Every structure is written in structure tokens, then in C-alpha cells.
């Protein structure tokens, strides 16, 4: 057998063996695709969406207020967080509860508010969850834990009157929060030690909608609210 034929035979065997045993596959890494407006729509998808969108639009395009400027959530505080907590404080008082202040969770703010007319749909995006307003009566010890927790989180949205937390002579507080936090969500397990709890059955979203409707244009507070 000529030498080239022999080596070809060995090479073939070697390749064959490699294909059989080596299942190594190589990834090709590419940048994540940004879904830009330059891409065309898909007709079939549009047809599926259409009846759903039509019905929804009629409800959600309703204008309910006016926002003077673009606002978004930030830490330790933001005009958006200030507005939302002030709105929930307002809703709680309107429902007859005596409340010192309101604290919401940063993670619960799900969108931004654009400048201009505010539609119902925007409030749904800001607060898509079905959470309700819960009022807790907490002793000063829990208030201290609350303060520490907020500081550890780098700030949480706080309403007017949050400075009350620094009052050393106050034996207990009434706070407005959402039921997600009251149930121990987002690290608020210590709120289970509250003295008393009132579930208002008022959705956070409904509280916001009512506040936006009644405060036109929306009053914005850009002061830093930090503990």
C-alpha cells in the first residue's frame, strides 16, 4: 500500500472517530437584537391583536388629567414616588382613616409618566397590580425597623409627613401601605408584628386614578424625601 494511501486511511478513521465521540458544538455570540420601529409589522399578528386592542383602546385612551413634565422613579426619592405616595395618603384620609404617612415599595412603580395629558392606560401601566391600600398601626419599635429597612433599601417612595418617623416621643404610627408589603413582600416581613391592620378594599390604582382626576394639573413635588 503506498504511503499516502495509508495516511489517508488513518486520517479518515481519525475523523470518523472524532465525529462519533466529540459532540462539542460552538456558540456564535451576537449582540441582542433591538426591536426598532424600522422592522415591519407581521400581518397575522396584527389581525390577532386588532379586536383586543379596539375594545381596550376605547377604555384606556380616556384622558383623566395632566402631568406638567416627564417623571420617573429614582432612589432615594423621586417626584413620581412623591406623587404616588401623596395620592395614597390622600385616598386613605378620604376613606376616613387617620394616617401619619404613606410608604410604598420602589419595585411597585412599574412605569413613568409622560408630560401632557394623562390617560387611564398610563395609570394602568404605572400600577398594573391589583394591590389594595392597607392601613397598619405599628408601635415605635416596628417604626424603627421600618426606618432601617427603608435606609437599607436606599430609599422607598414616601409621602408628606414621613419625617414623623424621626419623632422619638410618638408611641405608635398609622401608616398607609399596599397589601403586598403588609403581607411581608419585598423584605417587609416585620410588618406582621403590627398592632392592628385594616384592609381598605381600595385598589392602589383606583386611589391614583381618583387623585389624578381631582388634581388637574397634577401637583409635583421635587423635594428629596430621605430618611
Amino acid at each position: 500500500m503506498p504511503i499516502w494511501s495509508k495516511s489517508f486511511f488513518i486520517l479518515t478513521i481519525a475523523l470518523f472517530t472524532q465525529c462519533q465521540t466529540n459532540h462539542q458544538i460552538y456558540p456564535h455570540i451576537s449582540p441582542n437584537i433591538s426591536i426598532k420601529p424600522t422592522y415591519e409589522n407581521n400581518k397575522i399578528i396584527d389581525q390577532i391583536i386588532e379586536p383586543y386592542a379596539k375594545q381596550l383602546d376605547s377604555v384606556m385612551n380616556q384622558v383623566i388629567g395632566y402631568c406638567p413634565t416627564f417623571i420617573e422613579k429614582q432612589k432615594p426619592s423621586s417626584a413620581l414616588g412623591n406623587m404616588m405616595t401623596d395620592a395614597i395618603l390622600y385616598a386613605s384620609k378620604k376613606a376616613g382613616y387617620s394616617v401619619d404617612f404613606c410608604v410604598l415599595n420602589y419595585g411597585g412603580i412599574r412605569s413613568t409618566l409622560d408630560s401632557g395629558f394623562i390617560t387611564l392606560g398610563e395609570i394602568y401601566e404605572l400600577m398594573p397590580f391589583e394591590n389594595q391600600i392597607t392601613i397598619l398601626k405599628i408601635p415605635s419599635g416596628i417604626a424603627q425597623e421600618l426606618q432601617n429597612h427603608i435606609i437599607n433599601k436606599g430609599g422607598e417612595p414616601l409621602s408628606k409627613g414621613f419625617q414623623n418617623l424621626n419623632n422619638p416621643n410618638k408611641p405608635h404610627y398609622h401608616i398607609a401601605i399596599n397589601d403586598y408589603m403588609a403581607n411581608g413582600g419585598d423584605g417587609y416581613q416585620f410588618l406582621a408584628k403590627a398592632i392592628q391592620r385594616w384592609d381598605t378594599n381600595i385598589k392602589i390604582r383606583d386611589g391614583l386614578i381618583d387623585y389624578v382626576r381631582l388634581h388637574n394639573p397634577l401637583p409635583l413635588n421635587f423635594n428629596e424625601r430621605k430618611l
Partner: protein
Amino acid sequence: MNRREFIKKAGLISAGLSVTPFTSWGIDNERLVILHTNDWHSHIDPFSANHKKYPSMGGASRRASIIQEIRSKYKNVLLLDSGDIFQGTPYFNQYGGELEFKLMSEMGYDFATLGNHDFDGGIEGLDKQLPHANFRFLCANYDFKNTLLDGKVKPYNIVKKGKFKIGIFGIGIELDGLVPKNLYGDIVYHDPIKKANQLAKKLKSEGCHLVICLSHLGYEYKSDKVSDILLAKNSKYIDLILGGHTHTFMKSPQKIKNQTHENIFINQTGWAGLNMGRIDYEYDSFGIVKLQNYSYKKIS
């Protein structure tokens, strides 16, 4: 001529001799294309034109066009989602996730895992929408016994695409403290890293060329809370983690060394259906030129 050029030329020559990965219809059936999304949160429509951060960006319809375009070029496409399909726009509040599942079915999604917000309508709410999904849900570290989802959400699946045998499993985040108990009911959470390693080993031993973890753990935390990064570093047989939950906008997949100092990739595509990830795999066989970095050409 250096080695790389030689291989390139050899590839071209073999292409000329019709030992080519392309069929006569121009569809590539040698390559596996993985497309994936996470946390698209009911963002069916694109953002509004006057949105400050993402004007006119995203949209399920455009996503479908991109997927369709890729499918027209590649035979082996795997379309995956890492959870939090639900919640974020009034579409969810009004229709409970029905439209999201219908659209994903039309786009041809293969598998998805469950995110915490997919329980926002409770187990019942999710179960009610499952008939609208013709793709499968996978989650290995939730025990669904005594719930409506028992038998409907599987831990893993092995799928064949062309000559690729792929093992896929899902990993969910701890629901306690994140989702109200009355919504997640009797679902029991198990340690993600332990479950993931057990399953990945099993899938590799069953001959899977590629093991993919669909994770809703989150990319990374300041605390020692379990995350995709921790999972990757403590894993052995996983090749790719497609993550979610932390809405992390990664520019491209990240390479990490696993427990045995082998490469593992993590990717996450942000939030609201603004982006889609793409990772291609090719065989280490002869005649195929290995591409390094290429970018996807946009559809005009």
C-alpha cells in the same frame, strides 16, 4: 496563508464541491439558532412615539417579523422565553394573559419557564390561560403536586432540531415573599442550584449536545441570594442560561467559567419586549467555517 485563512478557503472550496451546509432552497439546516425573550410583561404594542426612554420601540408584531425572517433562512430555530410574560399593560388586566399566549403560539415559541408575575392571576388564572398556549412550560424546582398545574408544567424536555439534541429545563425564583401565598398556593420551592445540576447531569448523560437553563432567578444580587451568576459559577453541565426577572439589559451574552472552569454563557434581554437574544450553535465537524462575531442584519 495562515491557518484561519486556509480553513476559510477550504470551506469555500468544499462549498464549491457542493459539500455545503446550504440546501438548494437557501435554507441553512446545519446551524441551530436560539432566539429568546424574557420579562416581556404584556407589552403587546410598541411604546408610544413620545415615550421618553423607548419611543416607538418594541412590539410583538415586529418581533414576529424578525422571527419569521430568521426562520426563512434557518431550519433549526428554537424560540424560548424566561418568564414574566404576564402583567404590565392593561391587556393583562383586561384579558388575563389570553392574548400574550395566543401571540407567542403564533410566533412558534417552543418553551417558556414561569416568572413570579405569571402567578399574578393566581394558579387558577394561569391554568385558565394554558389552553391558549401551544408551547410548553418548564420548571424543575417547583413542585406542583396538589395544584391545578400538576402534570401541566414539566421539569425539562429533550428536543431534536436537525442533528442537534437539546436538553432544556426551567428554574424559578423563590415565591415566598415575592408572590402572595394565596396566589401561588401549594407550590413547593426547591433549591435551584441543586436541582439544576442534577438535571443538567442527567440531560448530558442522555446524550444532549446542549443543555439550556431557562431561569427566572435574576442576573445578580448584592447579597448572596441565588442568581444566574451564582448558578453559572456553581454549575457543571449547563451550557447556556437564558435569564430574566432583574430586567437586565445585556448587550450580548456573557461568558463565565463554571465549576470545572469550562465556558458557560448567560444572556438576558431586558424588559417589555424591547429586545430579543440570539445565539447560534454549529457543529465541530469538517467543512464548516466557524464564525466569531457577526451581527444580525436588519430587515429593510
